[in-house]
Each structure stands twice: as C-alpha cells, then as structure tokens.
C-alpha cells in the first residue's frame, strides 16, 4: 500500500471506551480491556476505562474518528466476543449518569454535530456478583476482545505490533486463566485504608 488510505488521513484519535463496575466481578471486563489498550501506548489511540457512560463523554466521541466500546454481556450465546456496528439512537428519557453507547452517540450528534462510526464489543461473562476477579470465561473474552480491538485499530490505520494481531491464546495454553495483556494492578482489590 502506498501511504495511508484517504479514509485514514485523519489525525483524530480512535477512541476505545471500556465500561463497567470493577467491583462487580466480570462486569469489570470492559474497563480492564480499556486499561490494557491504554497500556499499549499506541499513537492515535485514546483508551478510557470508565465506570459508567456519562453524558460528558459525548464531547470526546465527537472528536474521535472511530469509537470502540467494550462491555460485559451475560447473555451472548456461544461464549465468543460479539462485534456489532452501532448507530445513534435517541432516547425518550433524559440522560442522568447511565447511558448506553447508541444514546451517547446520539448525544454527540445532537450536541456537537458529529457522530463517528462505532462498534460495540460484547464480551461474554458469567459472574457479575460482588468481587474483583474475572471468571475464566471473562478472561478468555478479554483476550479475544483485545485481539479484535487490535484488528480494528489496524484497519483504522493505527500501527500496532504484529503480535497484537495474532489470535487470542487458548485458555488451555501456557497462559491459561490469565489474560497476559491485562494490567495486574487492576486486579487488586481497592485499598480502602
């Protein structure tokens, strides 16, 4: 390829937003994935690990060229990460402190006149009870999600390391039970004292 595609001739960042509650077990898989992406330190990529989707994020969305949301999903069949394109969807209700990605996209469009293309990665999880660890299913999903994110970043013209593009490791492999790219620090229980 001779230089970047016109589609990628854009200095706006790709935005990766992982959302969920780190104290509710697998629900924290989204922010953990986002933290891992932030740890890649890729040029042109901004990764945000957030507890909830807040209306304030709409402005960041409007400045992005592409947005990847990562969220836990208790229900997807088959145990694999599901990637879905997102379209803005207006809500009849006011947004307070909780939102969903389509509403946030609609908010970006309505407030700032721009809504970037976006996808949602639904990461299969099992246990969203109180706790700070991920189930094996969620850990596998996190690795899959990171692989998919790397592929999408590459499609967006982001320079990623070749090893990021290799398929996710099997849970039965040498790193079984531990997503190697998830930051260890995020697994520790919040220090309360």
């Amino acid at each position, binding site marked *: 390829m001779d230089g970047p595609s016109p589609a990628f001739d854009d200095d706006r960042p790709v935005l990766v937003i992982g959302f969920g509650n780190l*104290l509710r077990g697998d629900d924290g898989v989204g922010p953990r994935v986002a933290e891992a992406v932030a740890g890649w330190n890729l040029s042109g990529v901004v990764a945000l690990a957030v*507890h*909830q989707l*807040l*209306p*304030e994020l*709409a*402005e960041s969305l409007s400045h992005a060229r592409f947005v990847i949301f990562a969220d836990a999903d208790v229900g997807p069949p088959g145990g694999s990460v599901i990637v879905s394109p997102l379209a803005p969807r*207006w*809500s*009849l*209700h*006011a*947004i*307070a*402190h*909780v939102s969903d990605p389509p509403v946030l996209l*609609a*908010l970006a469009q*309505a*407030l*700032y006149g721009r809504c970037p293309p976006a996808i949602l990665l639904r990461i299969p999880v099992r246990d969203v009870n109180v706790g700070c660890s991920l189930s094996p299913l969620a850990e596998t999903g996190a690795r899959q999600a990171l692989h998919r994110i790397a592929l999408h970043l590459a499609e967006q013209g982001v320079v990623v390391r070749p090893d990021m593009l290799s398929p996710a490791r099997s849970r039965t492999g040498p790193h079984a039970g531990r997503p190697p790219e998830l930051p260890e620090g995020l697994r520790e229980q*919040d*220090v*309360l*004292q």
Partner: protein
Amino acid sequence: MGQRIVIDPVTRIEGHAKITIQLNDDHSVADARFHVTEFRGFERFCEGRPFWEMPGLTARICGICPVSHLLASAKAGDAILSVRIPPAAEKLRRLMNLGQIVQSHALSFFHLSAPDLLLGFDSDPASRNLFGLIRADPETARRGIRLRQFGQEVIELLGGKKIHPDWCVPGGVRASLADQARDRLRQRLPEAIETARSALDLMKGFLDRYPDEVSSFGNFPTLYLGLIGADGSWEHTDGRLRVIDAAGTVLAETANPGAYRDILAESVQPDSYLKSPYFRPLGRTGGMYRVGPLARLNLCKRMGTPLADAELAEYRQRGGRIVSASFWYHYARLVEILGCVEQIDAILEDPELGSDHLRARADVNAREGVGVSEAPRGTLFHHYTVDETGLIRSVNLIIATGQNNLAMNATVLQIARHWIRGPHIPEGVLNRLEAGIRAFDPCLSCSTHALGHMPMRVQLIASDGSMLDEVRRT
C-alpha cells in the same frame, strides 16, 4: 366512592419510588403519599467491618454523590481517632465537596429539571427530555454538560477517579492536588462561572413563567436544618448544625455533631423504605423540616463570595428572607453552584494546598463517631460505634433525601390538591407531581438505598380496590 391514583415509579429522579393519590367521592384529593419502594441496607452489612473501610464502603451507596458519603464517613472516622486533621487536608476535602456540589447540582438542573422548565410542563412528553432540550436550546445543554464535567474533574483530579474515589480517609486525605491539575481547574473557572450566571438568568425567567407551579410545588412553612459557618456564612463541610423555623428564628444550634440525636428523631411508615426524620422537640406533626439548597440559603447570612452574595441578595429580594416554596430549590441550587465555583477559585489560590502533611495518624481513641457534612441534597449524618479494635458495631446514616421525606409528601399532596380535577389525570399534571418531587432532587440510591431509573405507572383505584384506569410510562 373514593378512588386511589398511583404513580409508579416516579421518573427522572435517582432511585425507585411511586406516588399514591387517594380521591374522595367527589374526586377531590383526600390524601397523597410518596413511597420509596427499594431497599438496600448498607447500615446492616457494614457491621463488623473496620471503620477504616467505611469511607470506601459507604461511598458505594451512590454513584451521584459518593463524595458526600466519603466525607461524612471520614469525619466520623476522625472522631473515632479523636484527631484534628491537618489544615491542607481540610481544604482539600472542602475542594472535593465543592466539586461534588457543582456536578450534582448541574445534573439536577440541566439534565433532570431543565426539560420541564425550558420546554414546559405540558409539552410533549416524547421530547420533554435532554434531547428535547438540546433541540430547543443546544447551548444551554452543552454548557450544562460541561459544568457537570468541571465538577467531576475536580473530584477526579483529587481522588483519581470521578466515581467512588477512595481518597478521603479517617485523619485526612491520601494525596494533594498536583500543580498541573490546579492549573487545569483554574483554566475552567471562567466558563463555569459564566454557565452558572446564564443559568441563573434563565431561572429568574422561570419564576415569572410558572407562577402556579411556584405557588403549588411544596409552598408551605417548615423548619430548615443545615450547617452554618461560625460567622453565619453558607457552609458545606464543617461549622455548626442549626435549625430555624419558618420565620428564621433559631430553634436549635450546636457545634457538636453527636448532638443530632437531641435534635432529630426518625419515624418509619409501613408503605415506604424511606425513613422520615423530624425535629424532635416539636414531634412528628410540627417537626417537619427541609434540608438542601433551599434550607442552606434560608439558614445563612451570606454566601461568602462576591458573585454569589450578589445573587443571594437578588434571590431574597424576589423571595423574601426565608423562602418557603420548594420550586425555589432550583434557584437556590444555581446560587450555590456559583458560590461553589468561586470558593473553588479561592481554595486553588491557597498556598497551603501544596503541603505534604495531609493525614493525622492515630488509633481508636473513641468508641463512637459522628460525621456531618452538607451533601448536595442536604445534611448528611454518618454515626458509627466501634469496638476496641475499630470494628463497626453499629451504623446509622441519616440522608438528606430522608430528611425531606415529610416535606416531599406534603408537596405531593399540595400539587395534587391544586392540579387534580376529576378522576382522570392529564399527562401534564402527572408530570407536575413528579416535578414537585424532582425539585428536591431526591437521591433514593442514598436514602434507601436503591439504584436505577424510574419509569412511571399510574393506577386509578376505587376505594373497593378495583382499578379504574392505568397509565404506563417506560
């Protein structure tokens, strides 16, 4: 035959609740009740935990006002340690609470109530929301979001995250504010002040636009409770606890937060998980009081900052020295936002903020501690008893929303009696019932403690229990 109307749940407030209206045979309103229908039980499951953990645990009560719990809990912890926290820590705590008040008030006004106020209580419910607001006045919507973002940023830059920061601890705080963060906040101050002032201009117009709502949304005499500074200034973190009556006469005042038990008593109703505190000396009937922005402005002599004091003067010119209409909670909230931003500005200039002495260290020196602070919605009490090792033996939380419970019930009754004519309720009247509750900005997540949004169901029920009509809003 009497009828009963149920609004279940109430929308655009934090938590789950419903409203029941009992009609007489002639369709006049006999009674109205605001019920909170969710239960969480933090007071019980904190028992047995080390008191050191309480700020982190109780902050999880709420995603909107975690800082309020963090602060009151840490203050209760200070009392158990029997320490006076370092001055820098005290200022940093104040800074975070100011950010918390700004972000919460901005959410209440711009996100939850502005759709009613800007679009009208009788406007199409399909567009009476934030998106409708954006269509009608995109600049106000954008400013509101950025103002809330500013408040959140204060919290995040101090505590490391917007929601549930574990930064405030018994004895002080964990970390100071970096110079870079201080500069960043300074840069945002002019916009925040401008947003607050433009919202105040809007609000003054709403007072003229909605005279019926002003006069019927919880407009009655009550007592008022809150913290007050040593010089009578508006206060949010320390100070004295004061109760005044509807004429402004001081009925009780104390510098000892533990004395709240002499001032307050709590009653419970069988149809609600929300407790109903009242002023003990006057009993449940005469002891109804209000807390929060309206009460704080009634209690204080001055805001203590130039722009907010000018706005307070105009507020009092319009409403009198003691304002009794709950519709004015919105107005009071905006005056407080302005004052908070000015106080943030002043604290950011304080050289003591850079001190590295941020924590007083001690062991358990008292078996009981009470922490009081002003949450955005009103006065918040955390009361703990511990054993000799510091394990929690009992917890009592008195939450702002609970303290407004009696007044919210009276508000629903007043609105119902003013607006309901006959057995069928127009949507606009339904919305006014909710809006009357919204004026208090109740946080049921904190007070019961529940989580979530509130779709609405209205049932019209005859006195024999049969349902005559039902409306759902999801």
